[in-house]
């Protein structure tokens, strides 16, 4: 089935998420939609899938104009989607998830045997090993994704959309997924593959369309070089490197030994991790999302409950301290999910700036807020960190992502720090803000503070790191120097330590 999008436009308020996008995908073709986070790829696909309605433009399947009023229509028309966040019901079995929405009944009762048979049949066709009666919540992420694929195929999807499918996968799983996509392509499906990872694009794509700021900015052949694709994607040659002075070797400030973390279900998510960070250096923690980095940073802050091992800062254990004591020890923290974990959207900039200092001087005296001090402080910080806002009383919820992150930075860096932990500090930010954040992180390092930066973006890791710890399945595969080649880091992110790699720990 041929898919054609013509002049798709979608605005959210003042923001134009999609601006007259045209796209044609032939059957038996893998068409990559390449673009940065926030470029408008997912919006486009949500329009295609009937989740959003386009302001203008049309969708054609085999040259017939389609009018989708909901995902049901899209599915019936033969469009299947493998969502970035799996659309599976955790307490249902595989078969129930696959049949949901197009259930077959016998005498009014669900025909579960038929659904099971369907799961087995499709699994067999693609060599999956999926138990139809397993509960989704008991399945590993990779298997859940296969259930998503089975779900789409069971509805006879001829156009398959993969929305950032590799974000949660290990390199091996990614390779397997690529294989599946090629198999599907050979079976005649038209495939749209959304990603921002260049390697994957060049591996499977037959055609590449690059989107930037909601517009199609170009098409490319899979033979294009990384640099060509990247410059199309971001609109300039990516040069994230910033001027950094050499590390002044100092004593280790943060020493982590044998750190093991269990999650609420009792599974090991960080497994016997040991590392040190010296004062005045940046240790970058690289790895595919979900390999224990989040839990690791949270454990440093005291946000994790089931932690074993030692965490010493300047010779003093901070492992058993409650969060406010860890903060009082001089640990600054930028959480991964700034909107959920770092900011209170309904609070003003001024209020957010004192969020973690509501316990004593200078913001609080005798249990009462010192509003005059707060105003002065906030006014200063807004200026210093170039927060673009109408005033210090504006609620942070109405700020742009970049300005929100500046508020977080301003708050964390305005304390006297002895350790600075930044998790995904530039995720979803515009280029200008990224530069600003990077400069601040390096400045903090230069001031002699040990810094940990967690990032899933290799570019960021390479731009900032003095040393790099690569995590895989809760372990540190190795700690290498900041100038380690990308391909070595890539292998390490897949859990392999190439022979002869020089370790730097």
């Amino acid at each position, binding site marked *: 089935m041929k898919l054609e999008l013509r002049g798709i436009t979608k605005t*959210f308020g003042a923001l134009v998420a999609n601006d007259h996008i045209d796209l044609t995908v032939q059957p038996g073709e893998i068409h990559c939609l390449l673009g940065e986070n926030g470029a408008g790829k997912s919006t486009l696909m*949500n329009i295609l*899938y009937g*989740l*959003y309605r386009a302001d203008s433009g049309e969708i054609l399947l085999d040259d017939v104009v389609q009018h989708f009023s*909901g*995902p*049901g*229509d899209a*599915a*019936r028309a033969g469009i299947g*989607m493998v*969502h970035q966040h799996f*659309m*599976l*019901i*955790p*307490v*249902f079995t595989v078969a*129930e*998830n696959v*049949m*949901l*929405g*197009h*259930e077959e*009944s016998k005498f*009014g*009762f*669900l025909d579960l045997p038929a659904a099971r048979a369907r799961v087995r049949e499709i699994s067999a066709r693609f*060599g*999956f*090993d999926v138990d139809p009666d*397993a509960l989704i*919540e*008991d*399945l*590993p*992420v*990779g*298997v859940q994704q*296969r259930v998503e694929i089975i*779900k789409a195929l069971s509805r006879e999807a001829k156009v398959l959309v993969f929305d950032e499918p590799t974000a949660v996968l*290990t390199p*091996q*799983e990614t390779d*397997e997924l690529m294989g599946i996509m090629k198999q599907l392509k050979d079976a005649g499906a038209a495939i749209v593959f959304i990603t921002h990872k260049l390697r994957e694009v060049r591996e499977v794509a037959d055609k590449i369309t690059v989107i930037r700021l909601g517009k199609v900015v170009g098409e490319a052949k899979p033979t294009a070089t990384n640099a060509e694709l990247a410059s199309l994607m971001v609109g300039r040659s990516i040069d994230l490197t910033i001027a950094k002075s050499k590390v002044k070797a100092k004593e280790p400030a943060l020493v982590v030994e044998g750190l093991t973390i269990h*999650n609420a*279900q*009792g*599974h*090991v*998510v960080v497994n016997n991790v040991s590392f040190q960070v010296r004062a005045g250096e940046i240790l970058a923690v690289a790895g595919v999302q*979900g*390999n*224990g980095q989040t839990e690791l940073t949270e454990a440093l802050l005291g946000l994790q409950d089931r932690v074993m091992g030692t965490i010493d800062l300047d010779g003093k254990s901070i492992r058993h301290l409650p969060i406010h004591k860890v903060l009082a020890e001089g640990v600054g923290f930028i959480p991964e999910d700034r909107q959920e974990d770092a900011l209170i959207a309904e609070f003003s900039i001024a209020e957010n700036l004192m969020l973690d200092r509501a316990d004593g001087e200078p913001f609080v005296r005798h249990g009462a807020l010192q509003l005059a001090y707060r105003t002065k402080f906030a006014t200063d910080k807004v200026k210093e960190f170039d927060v673009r806002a109408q005033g210090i009383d504006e609620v942070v919820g109405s700020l742009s992502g970049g300005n929100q992150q500046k508020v977080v930075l301003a708050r964390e860096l305005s304390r006297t720090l002895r350790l600075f932990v930044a998790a995904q500090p530039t995720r979803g930010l515009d280029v200008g803000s990224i530069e600003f954040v990077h400069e601040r992180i390096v400045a903090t390092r230069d001031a002699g503070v040990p810094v940990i930066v967690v990032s899933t973006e290799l570019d960021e890791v390479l731009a900032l790191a003095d040393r790099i710890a690569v995590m*895989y*399945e*809760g372990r540190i595969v190795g700690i290498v120097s900041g100038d380690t080649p990308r391909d070595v880091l890539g292998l390490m992110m897949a*859990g392999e330590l190439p022979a002869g790699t020089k370790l730097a720990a």
Partner: protein
Amino acid sequence: MSAVTATSPVASGTAAGELKVSYKTPITLGIFALLGVILLVVFGRNGTSVFNFTASNAGAIQLPVVSMPGHLTGVVIAILGVLLALGSGLMARFQRRTPLWYITIFAVVLVTGFLVWASTGIPHELHVTGLLVGALGLSAPLIFGSLGGVLSERVGVTNIAIEGQLLAGAFVSAVTATITHSIIAGILAAAVAGVLVSFVLAVFAIKYVVNQVIIGVVLNTLVAGLTTFLYQQVLLNNIGALNNPPVLKQLPIPGLSVIPIIGPLLFDQNVIVYFMYVAVAGVTIGLFRTRWGLRLRAVGEHPQAADTVGINVGRTRFWNVALAGAIVGVGGSYFTLGNIGPFGANMTNGAGYIALAAVIFGGWHPIRATLASLLFGFATNLGSVLGSIQSPVPNDFLLMLPYVVTIFAVAGFVGRVRGPAAAGRPYIKS
């Protein structure tokens, strides 16, 4: 494929086979068994306990009156309770969960022990069948209420308004049945009344995205105020014309109704109770075996996933909340048509909140919620029965029981309850 299973990070632990059976159930049973030992053995009362099993309406069939030595029987039952608790421990030891029927037996044994203890040494006999029949009568509206609660919460709308729906059903059924002289019309009108309350709940919860607890609480106040106002202002002045409904007759089912104990208890009831059996079965089968139930549960667990496969979340929620209202409304008619007849101000007296407790205590499962309702109805009736036979147990504490066990349940002391993931969360498409 096995490779994938093995390589996934967090997953390696998640895979099946690691399912651990918790010792919570045996420990809880153990605690209750211990309490039983303390009550029945240590504080055992001397004298005889007399159980009378004959139903008041049994007619020809007379069952023997059982006299038991209180202390000895208590000791036997206490030992039985301890053995059952140990049995549950053994099951956990061998990685098996204690089944529901086992817990039910345990509960029956201990409750029997308690009854023996409470009725020992007092000059009255304990009419067991009467106790059970009365308990079922008190449970009936609770069961309807909890079924409605289960449906509503399973589809993702928190329903605090069960009380209001019951009260609306009771009021409307009494008035309608009086005016039309038709009990059936009364019951149908009760269902409609429940649906109307549900409509308000659904519109505010789904369309206006108002906090569902707030609407529930406000709806209860609204219905209570409205029915009391109309009762005081209108019904009291026109009792004959507006509040004098006929009462449903018992419909003994031939053959079944003569079975000792069970017969009068289950098969000599009125139409509403028979409908209740159908409703419990229907909701249970419907929820877990039909397309309707699958979609309903999907919407309550993960509305966006349901949306992406073409299920209209808002519509599914709206109509199922309405259906829940209809079921609860019928339960409301039991207060009037199924029991005493005329409507009285605030006659539901908190039954809706007990039903809510039953929903939670029953883990959002229709059968377990029904059992919980039966337990709560039993406790309430036991309170009044023991009070009337001058037992030493203060009935206020029995009346408290449903609320106390529900707090224990939500606090996780008695098994862990997990509600539908999206209950109470509005679903907004971008």
